[in-house]
């Protein structure tokens, strides 16, 4: 509040305040109900985006990946090995199981084990925001992950065949993209015996 310099200053201050309030109201009104020209422009941009031709990549071997954050690492898995991405669920602990198993959750009427993938990959503590369900034809198990990005595609030829760059004891890696994204081998992950719990609670 600076309107303390006198009657003239008060009038100027409140006139300016009224102008600012009027502008804010107008902007809000415009945002809430865009005018015809603005709506036409938005619709035109959206139509142009939808009308963009789909690039034909059939002759090129491509991988559809879903990237997600796991602690400090950013990891991708082929889309075909990810059964679903569900909101973060609180698992029920299972006594007598190894520490790798966080518990079990109810997934679409069935019991699904949830593992701490970060323990294997050496990612440390992670910020849990989603649960990724792995399985090529049916849900096999799930693990906690951070933010999950959209489905993206990369050319198989563009992958650099390098060893797993993260820490821990990863099952297998498909390679490294140009943007530095580690791609886990979904098949190897699904067949990793550490993710199978036997009758005595040991990996079978």
């Amino acid at each position, binding site marked *: 509040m600076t309107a303390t310099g006198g009657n003239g200053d008060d009038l100027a201050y409140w006139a300016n305040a009224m102008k600012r309030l009027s502008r804010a109201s107008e902007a809000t009104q415009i945002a809430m109900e865009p005018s015809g020209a603005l709506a036409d422009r938005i619709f035109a941009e959206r139509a142009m985006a939808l009308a963009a031709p*789909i690039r034909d990549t059939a002759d090129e071997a491509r991988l559809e990946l*879903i990237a997600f954050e796991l602690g400090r690492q950013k990891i991708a898995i082929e889309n075909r090995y990810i059964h*679903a*991405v569900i*909101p973060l669920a609180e698992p029920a602990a299972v006594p007598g199981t190894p520490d790798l198993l966080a518990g079990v959750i109810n997934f679409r009427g069935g019991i699904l084990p949830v593992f701490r993938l970060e323990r294997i990959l050496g990612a440390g503590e992670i910020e849990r925001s989603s649960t990724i369900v792995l399985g090529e034809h049916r849900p096999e198990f799930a693990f906690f992950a951070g933010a999950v990005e959209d*489905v993206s595609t990369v050319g198989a030829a563009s992958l650099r065949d390098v060893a797993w760059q993260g820490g821990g004891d990863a099952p297998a890696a498909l390679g490294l993209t140009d943007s530095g994204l580690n791609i886990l081998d979904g098949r190897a992950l699904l067949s990793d015996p550490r993710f199978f719990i036997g009758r005595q609670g040991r990996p079978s």
Partner: protein
Amino acid sequence: MLGMTIQRRLFFGFLLGPVALIIIGWVAYSCIQTMVDLRVQRNHTFAVLDGLTAVMVDALNAETGQRGYTLTGDAAYLAPFEAGEASLDEDITRALDLTADDTTRHEDILRLKAVLQQKSTELRRVIDIRKTQGLAPALAAVNSGQGKTYMDTARDIIRSIRGYETKKLGELTNTSNQVTRFTFNVILFGTIAAFLAVSIGGFLIARSITRPIAGTVQSLASTATEILAGTSQQASSMREQSTAVAETVTTVDEVLQTASQAAERAKTVADSAMQAVDVGATGRQSVMNTLTMMEEVKEQTASIAETILSLSERAQTIGEIIAAVNEITERSNLLALNAAIEASRAGEHGRGFSVVASEIKSLADQSKKATAQVRQILGDIQKSTNRAVLVTEQGTKSVHIAMNAANEAGETISSLVDTVDAAARAATQIAASASQQATGMSQIHQAMTHINEASNQNLAATRQSEQAAQDLHTLGTRLKAMIVGG
């Protein structure tokens, strides 16, 4: 002596000499008178003796002339006889007169006179015989011895008287000598004794006078010195007092002027105070108006705070809506992601659905970003609202403080009005008092002028006293020198 005054002491001191002189004079006078009497008596005795001698000489002359005539017959020899006969009576009478005071000697003289008359008769008879009868009868008459008998008797009487007178003369002489020696002694020793008595008495009197006088003079000199010092100091003090009084007169003049100015200014102050009372009343009314307006401001501020709180609550509702939208967005995102997964799983048949899913995810992401921005804006709005609430609360407090200050100002102005009113009355009284003070100062000025004159007169008198003390001091010193020397 000690109980007597100096005057009596001096009187008796001076009286001592004359008394001694009177005593000595009286004794000497008595002695001289005695000596004069003795001298008279001696002269009388000498006169008696001379008278007897003259009588004897007359008798002898008469006898001598009778004998010469008898022998010679010459009448010339009768001259002594005639002379003797002629002076004999006179001498006898004179002798009788001289012995009138002495009966014995007077009677002896009378007997002598009778004898000598008989002798004279005898002589005359012989002479007559010589004249008439001649020498022989005359000689025979002489030889009869009658004449000789008379003569011898006369000689015996004269011898007796002369012896008595001579003895008396000797006694008178001795007495005269004794009186003379006594007189001499009286004069000599009396003078010496009187001198000694007068000297000793004078010494004692002088000492009995000078000692206390010397002490008194000493005290007088000391007192005179002290008086001189006191009068000098007093004169100095009087000079200072005179100076101070003169300065005071000047100061009183200035104070008089100041008092006059103060009276005028007090009147001006009184007028100003009355105006201040009016201004104070106006100010008190203004404060009351201010309080009313401040009350309105307080209510409006409370209304603003209420409005802002409502806005904050509405913003909280918006936040809840945003959270719901965000949840929906998250779920839309997941649904889009799962749709994309399913589309990918569907292969070529799911390609179109994959595009739709991707678009839905894009919209969900945009919605998420928008909700994030809205949440941030809402957070800013919440902060601004909180700040506005705090500022409004502070404003309310400020208004409350301002109202208290205005109340205090009102009370202060009321008190000030009362004070100024009292000050106005006091200023009026001060103006009156200042006027009286000016009058009083004028009187003080006159009084101080009189005091100044009196002080000058006192200074002059003190100077005279100082001079008198100086003279007294000098006089004391001189008197001390006169009495004790030095």
